[in-house]
């Protein structure tokens, strides 16, 4: 096995315990934005390294890079129409790895497209329903109100974005708390947090059986919420946001059937509690040195496997 392939495989495998420890770490709450960057780097770096390792192992042309070698081999197969001779067991394994790498690339790409499409469809339906049902209200300028007693507030990201507040929430919260909710939701829309979450949703769909994919998705989701809380704090005091969170959290989710959701719901209760505690007892942000280390590590996690793909195999 060449050194390049070995390093790529080591990075791909190493990303998994790294993701587990990142999900369990407590520092991300102090600087959610930096932690989100690291999560993105881990996801992207893992994908590049895993695909690169599999394809690189399958590339037989000596002295060429993983990417160009694989391309040459595929073009050769396509042009001549005959598959390389499988002479022995090692050659068969190589062939299998090349195919597995290409399949992984295809699956990740296809799932990302499918996840985007289903998200767009769900939003489209929401917009159609909102067109028929929602109305404005002077208490929440710029938001749509739906007449329903349950307390909920959410945003529909996208080119055509909307913030939706239920009548139940309007009755439950005072003007200051509503303003804090709107500030939080506007941060989501402005910074397109949905696009941050989408690749992790695709990973979760591709690897439903993998605990680490689920933990990554949940961790990123919570960090995005915390980041939006931080943004809202620039405009509103922490107390308003904290009481709004608790009131909506305590009143909401009433209609959701119990059972299978039990465990998920417990985890989510912790989420709201974690956000409230963080608002009330803010920990100091990470130092500039720590942030620099995180940004540097994020860059390296993506850049090293990407460079290994295009440099000649050694």
């Amino acid at each position, binding site marked *: 096995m060449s050194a390049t392939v070995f390093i790529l495989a080591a990075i791909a495998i190493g990303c998994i315990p790294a993701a587990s420890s990142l999900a369990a770490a407590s520092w991300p709450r102090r600087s959610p934005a930096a932690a989100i960057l690291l999560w993105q780097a881990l996801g992207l770096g893992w994908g590049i390294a895993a695909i690169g390792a599999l394809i690189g192992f399958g590339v037989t042309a000596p002295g060429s890079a993983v990417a160009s070698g694989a391309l040459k081999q595929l073009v050769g197969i396509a042009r001549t129409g005959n598959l390389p001779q499988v002479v022995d067991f090692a050659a068969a394994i190589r062939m299998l790895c090349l195919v597995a790498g290409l399949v992984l690339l295809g699956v990740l790409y296809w799932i990302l497209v499918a*996840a985007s499409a289903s998200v767009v469809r769900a939003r489209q339906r929401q917009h159609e329903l909102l067109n028929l049902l929602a109305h404005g209200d002077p208490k929440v300028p710029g938001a749509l109100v*739906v*007449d329903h007693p349950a307390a*909920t507030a959410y945003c*529909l990201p996208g080119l055509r974005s909307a913030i939706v507040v239920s009548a139940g929430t309007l009755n439950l919260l005072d003007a200051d708390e509503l303003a804090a909710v709107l500030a939080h939701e506007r941060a989501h829309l402005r910074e397109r947090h949905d696009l941050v979450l989408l690749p992790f*949703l695709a990973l979760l769909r591709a690897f439903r059986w993998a605990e680490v994919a689920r933990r990554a998705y949940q961790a990123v989701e919570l960090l995005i919420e915390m980041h939006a809380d931080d943004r809202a704090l620039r405009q509103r005091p922490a107390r308003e946001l904290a009481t709004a969170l*608790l009131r909506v959290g*305590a009143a909401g989710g009433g*209609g959701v059937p119990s059972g299978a959701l039990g465990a998920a719901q417990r985890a989510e209760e912790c989420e*709201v509690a974690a956000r409230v505690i963080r608002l009330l007892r803010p920990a100091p942000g990470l130092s500039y040195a720590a942030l620099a280390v995180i940004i540097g590590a994020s860059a390296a996690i993506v850049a090293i496997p990407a460079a290994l793909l295009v440099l000649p195999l050694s």
Partner: protein
Amino acid sequence: MDVLWEAAGPLSVREVSGLLTDRDLAHTTVMTVLDRLAKKGFARRERNGRAWHYRAAESREAYVTELMLSALDQTGDRQAALSRFARSVSGTEAQTLLRALGALGEAARG
């Protein structure tokens, strides 16, 4: 759409126009809107003599419920389509935290 929801039975385009007294809409405009609602599945239409008659496919409440359920849904990928402000917390936990907040607020003021 509100007109269709409030009506007892199917309405013709002319009847809908007549009920929309607050707005002076052309007959063709109302027809286009009703046609679009029917295409999207919000209205059902049936031929009655020479004119199409329209009625709401589902009650307003059914649509509100659908909207809210998809917003409250805590499972699956719907979550990613929209972003909720807060998930549910158990009542007791929230009460405890709110009480703590109240005490903090009074301490700050007093």
